[in-house]
């Protein structure tokens, strides 16, 4: 049993990580009322920046930082257009995704099919050698733990700190927040840049650890799944974790089903995690009251500032 379960759980943890990173960033952005649909584009930019940097310098840490920076750079572009110039957030986000895809494909043309240095896996004495728990929990690379740590930190920050309260307040009513003297636009910039950094990290994880190579559109829609997860979780960090693991589990379930020789078309199986996520999304959204209750009221709306 363990020889199936252990690799399965390891894979689920790994598959959930890019989603967790990107969705945590998007969650923070949406909690302050900014809908950034550019996650997919920021992830791809992060992936190629990380891969290229690691490839050229040979240092994976520099690669990770480059991915982070690329995500922030694209998020800054989004913030300037949608927050300062007040363009429509949905359209700007879509454009950002299109831009990120094209830009990463252009830059990445020379890197297709080249191997890159891989993020090292951690090895803790004793813990990593535990049977079952060791490989499942204590032999991943550092980004897997970072994703969980950041999610926990964000959850705590939003629920229990004054900063989190301000974030929620800005997302609930930017006019009221402004009237009370909170700087709405700078707060939103901060949240959007954080979202970009997280998407960039997710991209770096994809190209340096999950599938250590570069291929065009290698994120395969994970940015979109991350955006969907944020809604599916009704903007609550804990449910984000459940959703990411659920997606990861479905993804590997389909591989195992194939390996067991079940006669289902493989295209359908690869679509399963996406379909599954959509189905769950629909089931959850049936409870319109809960979505309405938790949805940041200002989501996607532009802030006019002082009249």
């Amino acid at each position: 049993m363990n020889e199936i379960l252990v690799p399965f759980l390891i894979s689920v943890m790994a598959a959930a990580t890019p989603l967790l990173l990107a969705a945590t960033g998007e969650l923070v952005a949406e909690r302050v009322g900014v809908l950034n649909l550019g996650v997919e584009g920021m992830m791809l930019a992060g992936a190629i920046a990380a891969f290229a940097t690691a490839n050229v310098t040979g240092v994976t840490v520099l690669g990770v930082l480059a991915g982070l920076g690329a995500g922030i750079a694209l998020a800054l572009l989004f913030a300037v257009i949608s927050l300062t110039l007040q363009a429509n957030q949905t359209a700007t986000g879509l454009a950002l995704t299109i831009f990120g895809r094209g830009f990463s494909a252009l830059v990445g043309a020379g890197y297709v099919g080249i191997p890159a240095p891989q993020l090292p896996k951690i090895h803790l004495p004793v813990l990593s050698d535990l049977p079952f728990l060791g490989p499942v929990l204590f032999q991943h690379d550092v980004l897997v733990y970072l994703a969980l740590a950041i999610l926990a930190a964000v959850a705590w920050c939003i629920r229990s700190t004054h900063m989190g309260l301000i974030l929620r307040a800005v997302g609930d009513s930017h006019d009221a927040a402004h009237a009370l003297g909170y700087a709405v636009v700078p707060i939103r910039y901060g949240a959007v840049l954080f979202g970009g950094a997280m998407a960039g990290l997710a991209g770096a994880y994809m190209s340096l650890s999950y599938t250590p190579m570069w291929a065009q559109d290698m994120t395969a829609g994970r940015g979109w799944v991350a955006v969907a997860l944020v809604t599916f979780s009704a903007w609550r960090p804990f449910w984000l974790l459940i959703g990411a693991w659920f997606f990861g589990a479905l993804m590997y379930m389909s591989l195992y089903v194939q390996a067991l020789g079940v006669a289902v078309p493989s295209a359908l199986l690869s679509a399963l995690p996406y379909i599954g996520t959509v189905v769950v999304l629909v089931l959850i959204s049936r409870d319109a009251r809960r979505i309405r209750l938790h949805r940041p009221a200002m989501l996607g709306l532009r802030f006019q500032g002082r009249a």
Partner: protein
Amino acid sequence: MTDTGPLLRMSGMTKQYPGCLANDRVSLTVERNQIHALLGENGAGKSTLVKTIYGVVKADAGEMVWEGQKVSVQNPGHAQRLGIGMVFQHFSLFEALTVAENIALGLAGGSQRAGLRDRIVRVSTEYGLPLDPDRVVHDLSVGERQRIEIVRCLLQNPKLLIMDEPTSVLTPSEVQKLFVTLRRLAAEGCSILYISHKLEEVRSLCSAATIMRLGRNVGECVPAEKSVKELAEIMINADLPEPTPRPEPSEQAKPRLVLDRLTIRSPHHFGTDLQDISLSLAGGEILGIAGIAGNGQSELMDALSGEVPAGRPETILIDGMPAGHMGPRERRHAGGCFVPEERNGHGAVTTMSLAENALLSAFSRQSLVRFGLIDARKTHAFAGRIIEQFDVRTTGPKAQARSLSGGNLQKFLVGREVMQNPAVLVVNQPTWGVDAGAALAIHEAIMALAQAGAAVMIISQDLDEIFVLADRIAVIAGGRVSEPVPTRSATVESIGRLMGGSRKETADA
């Protein structure tokens, strides 16, 4: 250095909006320890002026001197650091957050979070503004929301407290308690800039007044030395007619609206359940429903308008027709017209034109739609008639609803329903946040409709209004409605006692 000059002096304040000069060289001086009234109709520029003081709006020209220092308030945070607090009329609460969280956000720095709940409870009970810190604002009534705003300001220990219509949702006894609080605050050294349309209140509370009209100063006075009528006339620059008395409705008029044991569980978590409400309204009669905010008024309104179905068809009879199971459209067809409390977003779609808004509620009774197509000319003409008859100040039927001031939009919305000549009209808070001139026009329209034979129900928290309009008065408290009493045998005290009835234990019997 001891500074004995005025706390705040503003001169030459000018603010130009596109197409509207909101403030034209306005001046205002608030002394220390003074309760200063700012009077004026809606659209007179009071809000713009106080928003300038609070840093929400930046003036184009003018000088503001605060405690002897020339200042230019950059933003609300700056105003708070100077010691200026403001109770807003709209948009300063966070719906999804709790009372305590809302208040924490209003306190600079958030350093005093520890013990905040206790301070909220203490200040709110001390000042007669009961609040549960852990409730989510989303589920609170207008009156309760206003209490949060007041308590939030009081916790900041400001030197100047700006209050925009703070009493519009309080009971008479709560108003008296608030006045005690405000007088004490003034005595303790906090000046108060008090905006209100209730001239009687201003006369009893304020020691000075600045009156504005159309963006300009039109007078300063000591309110106690003027009569209510004189104040109103300076404000609107016209002689106010006395309200015309109405003949008594005849005894044998047949009932046009009947409620039979209406009982509805509120769909909101913290809403009020309606229990066993039975009423009968005759044609030509106006029934006033008094009550403190949050005692089931909005639930009653929803049940009457059909937004929440009332279960058994026989629970509600409109002109004898069982209507309990009907939705709003069918009830309108049966002869009912309704004006909800919230103008923006409930009574009117703010981003649509007046003509489109007229169409939305009147299309079936005025047959504005034929074969599924909008009869644009007829709709335009109908909206035009409302604007003309109700003296709605706007550029025309094509103007967006949100471009109108509160009073003008309310006149339009009441007019829209009255012009449909309904058998039954239900209005929730007909004149909330509306200036004296518009309120008078709305009252006259409602009375004229009743005189023409309609049954009218007024749900209002403003007792003065109910006493002016209603033939009979009932009180809603805790979701139950008391037996209506004729207005001539009722007193403010007897009604006020019923209003407080179910909420607190009444010590006096």
